[in-house]
């Protein structure tokens, strides 16, 4: 049926490709950043298509929805209403299978190994900048956009670089170190050049329903119940019972007690150790094989160097070059020499670093440019 009705013709549909700046697929989580990203692209004259990846069946966990955890069903509604508001077509992509395989399963495996995983990197690597790139091509889009705080710039030689965002506090390049550099010319990060306050102000002015929505904190699929509860809901009791072991004092080896499973601990943790001890103690080391959690004084948390496995580089570096290295998302970065050692890297900090945590990423910067990164292991 040919619709001649004016209301039907106002339904957003890409129709013929416009001759303007091109067609963009924008990943919309329902949060303020990606909503503003989509809206800015419309303002800039792109033909915009919005998509939300539904990554997790929230009906199976006791997560409280809509409080900034990405991609829950209330957030899908928010993304949809923003898309309606700015007049773009919007789709929900079911990615539960890919998400479980590429993000959830490795997350759980990492915890069982006594590591503290960083699932957002895998989500970027395997969903946002792999699965969505394919969707971008399939939907005949010229670009893929996300609400990441990151910037893409071109050097004087014409090479594309990923650089930190204007808002240094919100910068998310830490999560993007696995990026394929060939993709950079195809990517748009519309809020990367803005401060969070300006993003919110724009959202208010544009009347986006998400303008005052809380920032997402923590990991989207874990929710308020905490990591250990999440792990316990996903792992069989027989496996969990094998994670129990001894609490030992570092470095003497004195047995201080028993613990309920290595997944309850992370390096540098001092609360919840269950010890009635006069001095403040910290988790120094987790031994996944013997299930021993080593605790000790704070001074033992400092390390001068770290090994990095499965490195990935967006641009070349000189062996032994001093780069700025971030060892966790909220870390400001410390100068370190980076050495190639076979398939791995050795990172030697100019000053010892506190609580270097296996499972997290070490990410290297030259000034504002993201050089590369890899996974910390001890």
């Amino acid at each position, binding site marked *: 049926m040919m619709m*001649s009705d004016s209301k039907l013709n106002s339904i957003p549909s890409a129709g013929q490709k416009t001759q303007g700046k091109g067609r963009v697929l924008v990943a919309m989580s329902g949060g303020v950043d990606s909503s503003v990203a989509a809206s800015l692209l419309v303002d800039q004259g792109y033909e915009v298509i919005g998509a939300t990846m539904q990554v997790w069946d929230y009906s199976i966990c006791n997560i409280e929805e809509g409080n900034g955890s990405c991609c829950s069903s209330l957030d899908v509604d928010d993304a949809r209403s923003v898309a309606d508001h700015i007049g773009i077509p919007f*789709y929900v992509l*079911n990615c539960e299978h890919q998400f479980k395989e590429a993000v959830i399963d490795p997350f759980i495996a990492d915890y069982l190994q006594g590591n503290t995983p960083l699932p957002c*990197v895998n989500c970027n690597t395997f969903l946002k900048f792999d699965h969505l790139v394919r969707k971008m091509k399939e*939907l*005949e889009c010229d670009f893929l956009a996300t609400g990441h705080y990151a910037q893409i710039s071109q050097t004087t030689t014409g090479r594309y670089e990923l650089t930190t965002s204007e808002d240094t506090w919100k910068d998310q390049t830490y999560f993007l170190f696995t990026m394929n550099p060939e993709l950079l010319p195809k990517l748009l990060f519309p809020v990367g050049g803005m401060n969070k306050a300006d993003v919110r102000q724009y959202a208010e002015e544009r009347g986006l329903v998400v303008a005052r929505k809380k920032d997402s904190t923590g990991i989207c699929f874990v929710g308020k119940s905490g990591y250990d509860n999440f792990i316990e809901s996903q792992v069989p009791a027989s496996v969990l019972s094998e994670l129990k072991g001894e609490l030992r004092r570092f470095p003497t080896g004195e047995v201080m007690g028993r613990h309920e499973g290595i997944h309850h601990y992370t390096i540098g943790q001092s609360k919840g150790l269950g010890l009635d001890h006069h001095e403040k103690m910290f988790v120094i080391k987790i031994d996944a094989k013997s299930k021993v959690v080593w605790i000790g004084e704070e001074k033992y948390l400092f390390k001068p160097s770290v090994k990095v496995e499965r490195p990935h580089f967006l641009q070349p570096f000189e062996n032994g070059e001093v780069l700025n290295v971030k060892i966790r998302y909220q870390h400001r970065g410390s100068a370190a020499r980076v050495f190639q050692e076979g398939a791995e890297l050795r990172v030697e900090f100019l000053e010892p670093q506190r609580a270097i945590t296996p499972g997290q*990423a070490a990410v290297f910067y030259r000034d504002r440019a993201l050089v590369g990164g890899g996974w910390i292991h001890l």
Partner: protein
Amino acid sequence: MPVKKLPVRAVLCKELSLQMSPSHRSLIGDQGPELVPFCWPFRTCSKSSFVLRPILEMQEFSKVYLDFNATTPLSTEVQKKIVDAMSVWGNPSSIHWAGRLIKTELREARRSLAMGLGVGPLELIFTSGASEASNTVIQGLWNLILQKELPEPWAGRREFITSTVEHPSVMKAMAAIEKRGAIVHRIPVARDGAFDLAALQQCLNDKTLLVSVMLANNETGHVMPIERIVELAHSCGALVHTDATQALGKLPLNLGQLKVDYASLSAHKFYAPKGTGVLFTKKGSPHQNLIFGGAQERSRRGGTENTLGQIALGEAMKKISEVSFQFERLAGLRDHLESRILQEIPEVTLTGSGVPRLPNTSSLVIRGVDGETMLMSLDLKGFAVSTGAACSSGSPEPSPVLLAMGLTREEAQNSLRVSLGWTTTAAEVDAFVETLKGVVHHLREIAKAETGTTGKAAKG
């Protein structure tokens, strides 16, 4: 009437050797062409003269709707009727003038419906939709069993039989009563759409209370052998319910002649609004309310009537006589669609086409092309189709109906459903095929390029 006064589409159809139906001619005569948003029924001279010439200049369509099994647009007449009926606002249960006015309208609607379906007016119970109608039958009978209130000759019967390809409203209602203790048998349907009558015969016994099998499948369009099912069931003394939702407006439908005991229908599949449905309950068939309340529907369904919906459905039913010519016309369009797709797009198969089927539905497996992506690509180009039932979209699982018919998960994920309607034109079908060709080629090229490049980066 001069052709130049007709809307563009009418001219197009004219070129395609189609003639207008008398009802359309009278409609144009009454209202003038500018009040007809799309050319309503056109009649073929005869099937042989229904010549589909290739369109030389491809018509540019901004929006083409080919998802009539999901829902249908309101017909012009129904829209007009609803607007008129909005000024009749009384409560039909009231004794006073306001109530009487609306009661008259509802009586007329019921009469129109009863006439169109070949049943008595009091055998129809208006509901909120076909889902409610089917639930009323299945849960109602189960409750009568539990209460030991089944009348003779059904007392003591407690087994149910259904098929594996039913709409969720039947499938899940059956699963729900099964959980509460009912015995439910499920008859398989083959990939070509064939219902296993032998299996039905084996399941039927003197304990069988109800056989519930849909008249036509929403996803593939295959038509079930209801007459034979009724014969077999009745010979065992069992009752028969059919979800006839997809048949209304697509097949000549006479519930009286069909001899079923219950049938579910939905208004929005027949050019009338959502939120209205009908349960046909043959006189004398056991009934228990799903919704208790006032004396509406002779106390068989509580709740103040959805007056606009019922009146609208009554109006839509006035067109029921056009089904037979639409059947021919749609079957011609569908055959044209399918033959072009099968000839011009490699590696496409049809599902459920080995048995009689609805004239408007094509269920295609397009190898190597993800249905979800295909749907989005087509939508972006203005074409509305579906991968399966609209009710199940958004679910990660491929269509349970297609899986039950023996398709692999991959085949089910590569499925596309195209369903035509009374306003579909040959030009739309041709424009769709051209677009589909491009989309499938594009998606297959990307799939080819991506093969072997997966798993490139290490997982952390």
